[in-house]
């Protein structure tokens, strides 16, 4: 078909050529002129097109502000759909989070007051806690959260409420402790921690920068106030090993704390703050220090102490021997020991679940309201506008 057509076309052009050839061989000058003129006109037209095209490129839709646009408006359908969608996705997520959080088994024990009777006079207390020689050992039996209230009263035998699967994380929780205090949080030297060369970079560390004339490594208030309570766990009179490896961030061990940096002049004289460090172990292996130096943003915080790598069965009784060294009595801080399992959402925290359920519920509620409003007063829209206009006229 196509071929036929092209053939036809070529035929007709051939006949046209024949016809043309019948014309006299010479052509009038005017004719040539005419042709030239036409040619030039065509050229001009072509150039015009070209320049137009160029101009079009130049004056893009952006410069002319004519980009294709999606212009959504808030139709009832859209809005109601959005709210329903939020509602029906949030409620399951909320339930899931809540469930996960509920599955976490957590044993919390506040021991700062339990290890020391609160009715003792404050100065005695401070003398006791400040005196390095006083015996600070305190034996506790851990219990579930439910009964913790009772723990202050008498020493009872407490049990693990539910089976706890390993790893079980041991945290110490400090309350009313402002690790985010400006003066505190700035008092450290990352350079010094990172490598030996930075040993003298102590200008940020005031007031704990030097011991005599020598720089303190690690310097600064944070390191100086290192938490130094220790816990020894036993289960059925058998010691439970606490795994203290890998409690710090891997990145801290590898990059923030140098393996060639050894503690120097740390807590050596003058004011003694918190814990001491073994001067023969490089900072990169002092994981307690690393954990401590990850300052907390909130005044109540938990820090990882170690891990228990065995499962704990329900109703098993754990005994803890605490070296109650750390001075929170001076400022009324709390110390708690926390044993907790973990879930995909982290530790026990009902907040997200509840928040999700609330938001989802409210959204559904709003959606229903909007639907009702839509049914009873479908479009206040134009009517309103008219009313307003009338109002204006009335004025």
């Amino acid at each position: 078909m196509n071929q036929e057509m092209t053939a036809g076309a070529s035929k007709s052009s051939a006949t046209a050529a024949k016809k043309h050839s019948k014309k006299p061989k010479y052509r009038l000058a005017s004719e040539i002129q005419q042709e030239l003129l036409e040619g030039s006109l065509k050229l001009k037209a072509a150039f015009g097109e070209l320049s137009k095209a160029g101009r079009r490129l130049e004056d893009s839709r952006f410069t002319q502000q004519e980009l294709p646009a999606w212009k959504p408006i808030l139709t009832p359908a859209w809005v109601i759909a959005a709210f329903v969608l939020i509602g029906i996705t949030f409620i399951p997520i909320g339930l899931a989070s809540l469930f996960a959080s509920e599955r976490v088994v957590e044993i919390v024990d506040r021991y700062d007051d339990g290890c020391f009777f609160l009715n003792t006079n404050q100065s005695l207390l401070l003398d006791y806690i400040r005196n390095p020689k006083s015996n600070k050992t305190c034996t506790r039996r851990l219990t579930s959260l439910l009964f913790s209230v009772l723990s202050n009263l008498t020493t009872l035998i407490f049990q693990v409420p539910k089976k706890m699967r390993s790893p079980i994380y041991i945290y110490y929780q400090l309350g009313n402790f402002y690790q985010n205090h400006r003066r505190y949080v700035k008092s450290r030297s990352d350079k010094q921690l990172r490598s030996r060369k930075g040993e003298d970079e102590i200008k940020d560390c005031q007031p704990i920068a030097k011991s005599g004339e020598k720089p303190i490594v690690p310097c600064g208030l944070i390191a100086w106030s290192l938490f130094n309570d220790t816990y020894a766990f036993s289960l059925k009179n058998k010691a439970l090993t606490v795994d203290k490896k890998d409690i710090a961030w891997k990145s801290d061990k590898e990059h923030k704390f140098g393996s060639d940096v050894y503690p120097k002049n740390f807590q050596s004289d003058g004011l003694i703050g918190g814990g001491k460090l073994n001067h023969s172990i490089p900072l990169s292996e002092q994981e307690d220090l690393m954990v401590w130096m990850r300052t907390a943003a909130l005044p109540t915080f938990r820090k990882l102490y170690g891990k228990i790598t065995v499962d704990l069965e329900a109703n098993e009784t754990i005994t803890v021997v605490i070296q109650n060294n750390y001075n929170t009595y001076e400022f009324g801080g709390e110390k708690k020991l926390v044993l907790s399992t973990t879930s995909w959402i982290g530790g026990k925290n009902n907040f997200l679940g509840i928040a999700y359920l609330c938001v989802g519920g409210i959204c559904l509620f709003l959606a229903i309201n909007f639907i009702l409003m839509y049914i009873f007063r479908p479009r206040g829209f134009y009517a309103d506008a008219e009313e307003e206009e009338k109002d204006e006229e009335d004025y």
Partner: protein
Amino acid sequence: MAVPLNTGYATSKLEEPPSRHHPSAPIATQATRSFHRNGHCRRELLNRLTMKRFVYINDDDLSDDLYCDNRISNRKYTLLNFLPKNLWEQFSRFMNQYFLLIACLQLWPLITPVNPASTWGPLIFIFAVSATKEAWDDYNRYLSDKKANEKEVWVVRQGVKKHVKGFNTVNKAIVVYVLVFDRVAVEWEVSMAVQAQDVRVGNIVWLRENDEVPCDLVLIGTSEPQGICYVEGVIECPNPDRDIRRFDANLRLFPPFLDNDVCPLTIKNTILQSCYLRNTEWACGVAVYTGNVYGWLQLLLSIVYSLLLFLGNETKLGMSRGVPEPKLTAVDAMIDKLTGAIFVFQIVVVIVLGIAGNVWKDTEARKQWYVQYPKESPWYELLVIPLRFELLCSIMIPISIKEAFNKLKAYREFMVDDKHLDFVSLDLVKSLYAKFIDWDNEMVDLETGTPSHATNTAISEDLGQVEYILTDKTGTLTENKMIFKRCCISGTFYGNESGDALKDVELLNAVTSGSPDVIRFLTVMAICNTVIPMQSKSGAISYKAQSQDEEALVRAAARLHIVFVRRNANILDIKFNGSAIEYEVLDTLEFTSDRKRMSVVVRDCRSGNIILLSKGADETVLPHASAGQQTRTFSEAVDQYAQLGLRTLCLAWRELEEDEYREWSSMFKEANSTLVDREWRVAEVCQRLEHDLDILGVAAIEDRLQDGVPETIETLRKAGINFWMLTGDKQNTAIQIALSCNFVSPEPKGQLLLINGKTEDEVCRSLERVLLTMRITKSEPKDVAFVVDGWALEIALKHYRKAFTELAILSRTAICCRATPSQKAQLVELLKSCDYRTLAIGDGGNDVRMIQQADIGVGISGREGLQASRAADYSIGSKSEIVVGLDGNLVVVIGDGEMLMAGGDGDFVLSQGDFSKIIFAGPNYGSSVQFNSTSSFSFISGVSGTSLFNSVSLMAYNVFYTSIPVLVSVLDKDLSEATVIQHPQILFYCQAGRLLNPSTFAGWFGRSLFHAVCNGGGHGLVTVAVVDEATVMVDDQREAALFLLIGKIITGNAFQAIVVFVITIHAYAFEKSEMEEVSMVALSGCIWLQASVVAIETNSFTILQHLAIWGNLIAFYAINWIVSALPSSGMYTIMFRLCRQPSYWITMILIVAAGMGPVLALKYFRYTYRSSKINILQQAERMGGPILSLGNIEPQPRSLEKDVSTLSISQPKSRNAVYEPLLSDSPNATRRSAGSATQFDFFQSPSRLSSSYSRNCKDN
């Protein structure tokens, strides 16, 4: 020579060659050249002592640097002073001072919560951006100056005598004919072209047609047939001043040949800088005032002076231009105010937190052994904590300011806008807006291809705020092209059907059949004028006329076969139907504005008859008709034509007796040579001849309006914008134009009130009458405009400023005629002082001051040169197309490009008190979120002033994350151009916020405070508040809004801030509360929320919006991943850890849902149930629904007094007051309108007057 009947000429135009005024122009010979040469010092001394300048003509002593050269400089800076000057300027703004203070405080390590870089970085960046922009602008100014300075100008120098070569032979050897008094021509070569900047005082400048005049010149010769005179002498003229109407100088000749060797020169003998030479083949003049930079000799002096004086252009226009002040947009000014307000708020916060901090420190922190507070602290210790908080709070300002900026703007527009403009991006956005103007194809002048250009990039957003447009007439509204349209010859109307007399078959027939009346009529048209026909080689005849009216008449006559072929000295050649007729001009009775007519006395060379031909305004011609003639038809014709907006001229003639003429002629000569009261006496003599005229007919001429002008003005007036026409033109012409371009509605709706008078009393009375009328009629649906002329305006502005201000506020339309440039500027100033936003449009040099004075100046680069467009903020070509949308910015360009009006800045989105936005969303709310989080954080960090966010995040957040969505917000369109153009009323709603009644200080303060508290406290009580809010918004004044705003910035954003904060600290409690992580969670929460807010506020998503909103979000993660990958950074691995945690993502979603849910709900509620006009339009536009009428707006002037409407007294229609024929006498109309106004005196007691006064005049 007659002065043109039409004074459509702007004042700057070349009015008349002076040689005509001094027919016996003084002459000197070359021999005496060096006769009077003085040394440098003596001259200088002379100048200084006499406060005069002596211009030695063609003194080729070029080393004479007494006066400045002709270099034009509009530059603000030089290379040397750029840095200090620019910094000084930038720091003169309160906000910048504040930032500097903060930045300096940050250098004190004890108190700085974050790295100083987080403030210095943005600060330097901001300054760099601003400075770069300034530098770029200045560079462009320099380029355009350079172009002007390097323009070639021909200067006549004493040269070698050369052969006469004629004018057109060789360019470089143009010859000046020097006419010596004995009429012997001496030729001098014109020297090479020099650059415009090298023209010196005393040089003789040679101009050809269409040249731009490089400096102020005293004309000494033109191509006019009367010949040229070349003078040797000194021009004694006053030191430069700015009054362009006066120039009182003397020309002395060396040696004093004639008895009166002092020849007075007036402004008429000058042509001023930047005018164009028109209709004159050439002219030459002596430069008297030049340039604007002092010569090098005075450079040292000038440095000293420059501290005290404005060193500027010495030319008249240059001086009258005034000092351009940097224009601050309303928003800028508001920002500065707001900064102050926020600053105060900050101080409160700082004091409260500071005290809390110190107390906490003393009670708690001393117990916190691990913090190790020293026992004894230095004296400044108490200050440290407050200062830290000040620094923390400082984060709030840059950002919340711009937020406030947006809100404020929105309030002014009676709607709330939530563009996320922030400090850094503001300038960029402005530039982008400006760029869009440059780019817009629809604003390109189609004829010349001149694109529009935004010179001042800083004031784009003010385009939408314009309330008053002040426009020049000639060349702006009209094309300045006159066309003969209709005529009435001895009772027969031609051109009534077709609208064009030249196409009227009847008229053509009458011409061919040789109807004597018609022939006479056409003859008067052809020769009663001062037109000079120019015949080119091909035989085509072109006409050179000073008056466009005359040219139109001559052309029309030529079309009707009576062709004015040649003017040969006094012989005029007319060609009629192939036969040539010669007329000898015996006398020309010139046009004066008092006489309002001109006549010529000619002798018909065939018959020898002497004929008087007259043309003029009807009221000056018709009364002189011969006794028997009925003139009723003619006055009817005049009325009819005037109603059509045409300019009318009555043509008449009379045959004179030889004796009569001779007698008169001698009187005329005598009168012409008198020295005392010459003009008056000449007029009197003319009067004696111009009587018993045989009225031939009425010719009607159209001063063509630019295309689309009426429509555009209509549109803009619908949008509630008021128009004032300021013109140097005559009253009647101005009124005609005003009528024809919809300035004033036609009868019976419109009414014109005239203010005039020559003395104070008259003006005062006139003014009061108009005021009374205005007050009474304003309640009626009437268009009342007042008309004032320059003289009355001068008096009114000087002595009755208050009354005039009131009038200005009351009337939507005004016509000011005969206004000088400085008066134009004063009017702008007046409106500005009433707190109106003004836009001035003009095309000529006489508009420059007005353009610079106005908030927004628009210059048209057209026939009148580039002066206006150089001075303007926006320059547009004279033939740009009609309507342009600039991001939903309604930019309406009137007709062939004459008016530019922009509206709304794309902020049509929201309507009255868009509640949801006020409360929940916030531009840059994120930073407030930060602020709030930070301050909340301060309570859990022991009020010690720790920053929740690290330095990098803070800096990045301020500079980067929040800027990009803002940039894109520029591109957001609320409504499409078409819709806006269709419903210009919408613009009015954008401005409606400005029409609110002021209430007492206590009132609005209390209310705003209440609302701030209410809204802050009761987010839940949304529905109640919506209603409440909407009603209160109507009453609130702008300042109230300001406080409301501050309250809301704090309370409103507190909502989202609290959402982020609460969720973060609860979701990341206990073992997760690692500082870096928590801060990153909070920051990403901010970013997420911000993206959602931007998304929900965006009206149209183009690819750019998507890119900016989502791209920004992605960029946030990308950047933080990169930073997290750097071991040395504080947040090493943080982002990776977070992204692996499901709880992080869950938290983000929660933040978005909790933060945006209420916003969406409220927005929806408002949109559906409380929709604004804009919402309605949006719905209609996007869903294709019917657009209900928005209702017509009759924008009321501010502070209406409702009780006035009870005094509805019908105004007697004074039709003639409106439809004044073009050349009719104005007092007539005054009397009428004044007469009608007087009767209201009874109703208005003086006390009422004064009370309404105080309410009407907004005292600033």
